[in-house]
């Protein structure tokens, strides 16, 4: 439907906003352009209705190079919803919604009918709202008008530039749901720009992730969540969503949860040394590993103190063999199963050759869970008490 072929955009001051964009936007889908600010997502969108001209490359709509079309005519055929709503404050709601039909010189009755139809489409009573001014409406209502204004002349393509980002969370949610409902009916080709991954996953049929003027990954939300192309995509999606996607069939594995450098001691340490180490690390047991890092056993503070009087003894003499270990790559649920079955307070993670790699404790499990469910957004994680 819309094709970008090697599109570049460099501003006069030398800023390279788009490096080389190749993109195929499918008809009848919501394609979400997402990325951090300055990644070029809005620029990419505005190229489509020629609000911005590319420095190089070609953009085609239905195979036609848009550089050869009249920009004003092109824009009338493409719906446009902008971030800060952009209703005309001096026009009534009816005038605002009917602006494109009027530009296209529809006859008055047809325009009026269309306005009423669109108002009822988003649940606004046309008797009440037709003659009101934008400032008399709430933010959510205003953006509904913004959306139906874009639909007025029944364009095939609609561009939406962070349309819901200025709204309060409840209105945003409602408008997202309404958009999904409308889209089921209308099947427009929608290009939707956002910086909110939740919104992208909720609305997008296809997500196009951008960074520094390049497309990093394109795919269905499911695809991107399951197979992020690189660390940037992973970090942008956020651990929370990656983890959520794993459930229920893919719980995290023990490697993600374990402490990697728990308190260990070599078998030749004396008991006093062991006590000192536990005190320093603030733990109640030590894992004993030999010089090849193979797990030999564990000692608890109680056993050490029990034998403390005998100065010649080393930890090797008082340690207990470790009966339960899990191998790296084991799922967390299997590890938890073992821990609860044997009433263990911790569980060592080893490689195949019994090389010790880490330790799972109840504390690590809890903090991992907290990490999974705490939001990725800065500021909010502070509220999660572990």
């Amino acid at each position, binding site marked *: 439907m819309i094709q970008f072929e090697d599109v570049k955009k460099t501003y006069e001051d030398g800023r390279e906003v788009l490096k080389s964009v190749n993109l195929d936007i499918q008809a009848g889908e919501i394609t979400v352009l997402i990325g951090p600010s300055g990644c070029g997502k809005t620029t990419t969108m505005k190229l489509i*209705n020629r*609000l911005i001209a590319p420095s190089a490359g070609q953009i085609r709509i239905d195979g036609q190079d848009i550089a050869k079309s009249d920009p*004003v*005519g*092109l*824009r*009338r*055929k493409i719906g*446009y919803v*902008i*971030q*800060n*709503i*952009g*209703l*005309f*404050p*001096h026009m009534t709601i009816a005038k605002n919604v009917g*602006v*494109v039909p009027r*530009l296209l010189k529809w006859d008055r009755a047809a325009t009026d009918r269309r306005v009423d139809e669109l108002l009822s489409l988003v649940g606004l009573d046309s008797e009440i709202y037709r003659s009101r*001014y*934008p*400032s*008399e409406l709430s*933010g959510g209502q*205003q953006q509904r008008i913004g959306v139906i*204004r874009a639909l007025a002349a029944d364009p095939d393509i609609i*561009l939406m530039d962070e349309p819901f980002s*200025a709204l309060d969370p409840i209105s945003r949610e409602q408008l997202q749901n309404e958009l999904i409902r409308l889209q089921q009916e209308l099947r427009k080709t929608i290009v939707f720009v956002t910086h909110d991954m939740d919104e992208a996953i909720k609305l997008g049929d296809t997500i196009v992730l951008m960074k520094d003027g390049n497309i990093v990954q394109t795919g269905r939300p499911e695809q991107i969540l399951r197979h992020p192309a690189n660390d940037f995509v992973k970090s942008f999606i956020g651990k929370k969503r990656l983890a959520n996607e794993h459930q229920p069939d893919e719980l995290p594995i023990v490697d993600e949860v374990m402490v990697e450098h728990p308190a260990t001691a070599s078998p030749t340490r004396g008991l006093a040394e062991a006590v000192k180490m536990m005190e320093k690390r603030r733990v109640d047991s030590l894992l004993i590993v030999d010089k090849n890092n193979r797990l030999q056993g564990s000692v608890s503070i109680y056993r050490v103190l029990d034998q403390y009087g005998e100065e010649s003894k080393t930890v090797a003499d008082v340690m207990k063999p470790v009966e339960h270990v899990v191998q790296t790559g084991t799922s967390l649920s299997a590890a938890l199963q073992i821990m609860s079955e044997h009433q263990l307070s911790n569980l060592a993670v080893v490689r195949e050759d019994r090389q010790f790699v880490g330790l799972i404790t109840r504390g690590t499990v809890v903090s991992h869970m907290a990490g999974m469910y705490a939001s990725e957004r800065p500021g909010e994680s502070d509220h999660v008490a572990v």
Partner: protein
Amino acid sequence: MNNDSQGVMGWLNYMQDHAGYLLSLTWGHLVMVFCGLGLALLVGIPLGVVCAKNEKLAPWILTTANIIQVLPSLALLALVMIMLGLGFKTIVFSLFLYSLLPIIRNTYVGLKEVDAGVNEAGKGVGMSAWQLLFKVQLPLSLPFLMAGLRLAAVIAIGVATLAPLIGGEGLGREIYAGLNLRNNLKIYAGAIPAALLAILADIVLGKLQDKLKQGRRQAKV
């Protein structure tokens, strides 16, 4: 000073006795002001638009209008008279020059004040540059333009009292007659209506300005 002792009553009597004459002077005064302002609107609004669309030209146009504005009114009248001779057209042209700056500047500011989102929306829905100007930008800058017109009108009504000096009509004629004849009543009969006209213009145009502001409510997100 012959009529001084009669005070306010004397003045009112004088006004009544010469009502027809004074009304015709007032009418003449208004005609000059309207013509000057009308010309200033015709020329000033397009110049304001040019300023807003072309940042390179803006300082030139605004500075020129500014220089005209700071010339003393009597000096300006005299200069225009040298070019155009005595009479109506000279005073109208002077009033036009005097009204130009507030109208250009306020049109310019009004256009600059139009919200960037609204401009982008207009462009985005497929308005041509002219449609954007006439359907969105000028209507939205109307309250500013109105403020400029108000200022221009008050100045013009004042400057128009100098008209008789260069052979024009208006309430100034009565004032100068009063000065020449040392007749205070005549001075009052010219000065008070002129002042009232200015005040009235200020009030009426101020009301209109408020109305426009309310009518063209700004969208709040």
